[in-house]
């Protein structure tokens, strides 16, 4: 549940430093960020600017070196591994550049996975998976394995998996990075439809065309937010 003014994500002074041997790499510096519920935000910037690191911290795959991070009003920077796991499972949906579907599971089983870890009953899982796949237009491929699908279809399945648990926010990391332009456009349209239906989306992209699908874009450079743009109308492409 977002706070009273609808803020879902709030970051203050977030820093991320990687230590390798004797080298310190400052990936993020002084990140201040607020994302309200229902927002479609993109994080843009050149390679190595820290956008994926920021998304990883936002998605609780990684933790900040310094700073505060509240998700849905709850401080999450210092949570235990199991608490972070639980939040990832229930409140965040991931969409990866490389789709990251499990090749040994069918489409149905891939989408079912977050619900399985949540302990959802079999009948409820079945219904939710069916709904999610229908939303992305992949309900007819339930029994297929990822290797039997095109890249675009795989990413649709990945989107269904991200949606199936009704997360508070979808985190998309270069969702079109491994797709041709036609499939890339289709996936972006799908995300836009989801947003129109109320989903909060946070997307990393280095492609300005796709960044423009979001209503708000923050630009990163050398780990700092250097610019923020807000579109009056969503989807000005």
């Amino acid at each position, binding site marked *: 549940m977002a706070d009273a003014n609808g803020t879902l994500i709030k970051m203050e002074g977030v820093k991320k430093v990687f230590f390798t041997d004797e080298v310190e790499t400052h990936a993020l510096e002084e990140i201040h960020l607020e994302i309200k519920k229902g927002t479609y935000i993109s994080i843009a910037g050149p390679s190595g600017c820290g956008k*994926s*690191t920021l998304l*990883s911290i936002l*998605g609780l*795959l*990684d933790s900040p070196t310094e700073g505060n991070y509240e998700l849905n009003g709850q401080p999450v920077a210092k949570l235990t*591994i*199991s608490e972070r*796991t*639980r939040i*990832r*499972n*229930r409140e965040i949906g*991931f969409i*990866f*550049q*490389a789709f*990251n*579907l*499990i*090749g*040994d*599971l069918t489409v149905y089983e891939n989408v079912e*996975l*977050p619900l*399985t*870890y*949540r*302990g959802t009953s*079999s009948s409820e899982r079945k219904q939710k998976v069916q709904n999610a796949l229908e939303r992305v237009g992949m309900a007819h491929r339930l029994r297929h394995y990822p290797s039997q699908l095109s890249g675009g279809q795989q990413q649709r399945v990945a989107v269904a*998996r991200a949606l199936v648990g009704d997360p508070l926010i979808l985190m998309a*990391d270069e969702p079109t990075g491994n797709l041709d332009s036609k499939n890339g456009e289709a996936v972006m349209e799908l995300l836009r439809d989801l947003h129109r239906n109320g989903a909060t989306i946070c997307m990393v992209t280095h492609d300005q065309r796709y960044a423009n699908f979001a209503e708000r874009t923050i630009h990163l450079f050398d780990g700092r937010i250097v610019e923020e743009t807000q579109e009056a109308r969503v989807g000005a492409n």
Partner: protein
Amino acid sequence: MRAIWQDIRFGARMLAKHPGFTAIAVLTLALGIGANAGIFTILRQVVLQRLPVPHPEQLVLLYSPGPKQGHVNSDESSAPGEDGAESFSYPMYANLRDRNSVFTGLAAKDTFSATLTFRGNTERARADLVSGNYFETLGVTAAIGRTFEPADTAAPGSNPVVMLSSGYWKSRFGADPGVLNQSVLVNNRPMTVVGVVSASFDGIQPGFVPEIYIPITMIPSLTPAPTDLNNHKDYWIKLIGRLRPGTSRERAAAGLAPLYSALLRDELPLFTGWDDAKKAEFLAKKLILRNGARGRPQLSSGAGPQLTALMGMVGLVLFIACANVAGLLTARGAARQREIGIRLSLGASRGRLIRQLVVESFLLSVTGALLGLVIAAWTSSSLVRFAAENGIADGLSSALSPSVLAFTCALALVSGVLFGVAPSLRATRVELVSTLKEQSGALSSGLRHTRLRQGLVVCQVALTLLLVTAAGGFARSLFNVKHIDLGLRTAHVLQFSVAPQLNGYDQARSFAFFGQLEDRIAAVPGVLSLSGTQEPLIADSDRGSNVTVEGEPPALAGTRHVMRNAVGPRHFSNMGIPLLKGREFTRADVAGSPKVAIINETMAKTFFPTGDALGRRMKFGGGSDPLDMEIVAVVKDSHHSGVKEEPRPFVYIPYAQEKNIGALTYYVRTSQSPETLASTVRGVVNELDSSLPIDGVRSFEGQINRQLASDWLIASLAEIFGALAALLAAIGIYGLLAYAVTQRTREIGVRMALGADTGKVGRMILEDVSRLVGIGVLLGLPLAYGLSRLVNSMLYGVKAFEFVTVGSALLVMVFVALAAAYLPARRATRVDPLVALRYE
């Protein structure tokens, strides 16, 4: 529960989708688990299993080490000074039975060779002579009819009754209940079948399953040789008692001590020729009560140590197999990093993923165990058959009992934990962000990132060195044993035994029969010579006596012990034993002619160190009787009872001058293959007496091989387990190197692009394997040294930790390492830099 079922389903699918991996892992585990379960099936029966009687923990075996005089019949190998400690005289048994206050029953038994004739058909039968309270004391009932009662042994020869074992009743009598109260001939003496023993009971001596039970007091009427049940100096009975409930062995022994001392005091006047010290030693003899819950210990003390050693070896093989599968799972875990990363990102806890991977491990181990049971059944039935065919043990079962199944389940569980948990922990330690981003651009550095697998390979090498060293020790021991010079010509000889005495022949009729038999066989075409012996050769059969010889100090008269045998004419030339001086026995050496003896070289040197033995006189026993035998020859030492025996003083006499010859074993030398003569020999015996069983028909070399069967078995199994360990180690090393080469393809490409030639690349791989094998060998050598101290007592003429054995084992390890490294090294040297640098 539902989640675990999901894990099982998914795990099964994962295994089915990778049939190559699954097959290798399951087969590896099946071999390890199966071999363990198979050996355990036998070990349990030989060493661990209690007698199938009520409260076996109350049973005790009685021993009394110390001086004896007279005849001692011993069937246990004992510590020095304890020879015949398990044997008691019948009067001593009767007194202990009737006058003790610590046993609810004290039973007696001895094994006995009998013939049983039923409806005109005579066969040899293994028999137990037992006291009337034997079954009552043990708590064994009859399947049909009745068991013996104390009244059956109230007086010598009074009750000619017999009981059948359940197995014999089924095999010989077709489980016909009508056999009850029917008359059979036992050693040609009519006896009535009064019962069949309960099916679960196979006697109290594992490895010897009696077919018939006879009241012990019937012995005088079953053999022409007079057996005096009142003789205090005839030690032949083995005792088993059941303690009163709540009485400990120590308390019982203390309770028996006054009675036993009194009985010894009563007996002392019967023992002549002893000085005061010997008499004091005799009177100080104690009764020792040993645990009888597992029955008499012949088999467990004989085969137990070897089986325990084998169990240890197969345990190591299983450990190596587990290490191998753990290595495979670690490699698979590395290949599944992405899948695991995805699952973690979607909210799976690490514990949940570990559980999923461990479930997969258990699926492998359970499948391996199921297949292992098939291997175990095959292994144990082969061992049981081998043991029975080679006279090592009868009555062992190859059935997979509930305890073997429980043992197999435990093995599956333990091996699942051993090989499954560490790789699962390793596999779920995922760097989430980089894994999900597929950041594989960095060059890997050799084996640095495979520490767990390296550790496993080092363990495999160390344990394999251990097993190969042990296998080398056993193989060399067998080689030594097989090349012992027995002092006998063993080739082209057929042996067989006949026991006319068991068919009721008296002595004169037996001699007549032997004479006819020898004449007829000698006339068979192809037969070169033959001779008979009272004690069979190389058959663990011993007979000995104290002797008095001419010219020895009076104090030694009748005190020195020698081995003896009664043999037929031309025995020494027939068996290839060189005559050093004097003459062979001839047909003229018969009962009425002057008594003669032939001694061996060791006896000549020991008893006549300064003079010529030829023409000197001697006798068996001491006392004032005249020296009734003349030494007519000295022969070279030869082995008598076993292959591994040391030379002992030996006296041969003509069997025609022996008092009581009921059976002879013949050795027929032939110009052809001895087996081809077998049917002819059977025919000749049959012509002379169709009711006389012929026993132990086999080549003499076959008999020697039976003697070496347990050495052969342990050496062969040790070699198989050593080879299996080496194969598993090779697979482990190969898997690790192949994985490392795959991981290093880009690195190798870069090196080659920078000018490294194929030799340098190949050396790089060999350096890796050398380091691992080197560490494994350094760890394995002290282990091998420790092991050698445990197995040395089972080896002959060699120690396990000797230069040749260890050097050979090291060579095997080098070969294993090179063979395992060959393909990965070759692949590394064939890397195309252009392709490798694009490698993902």
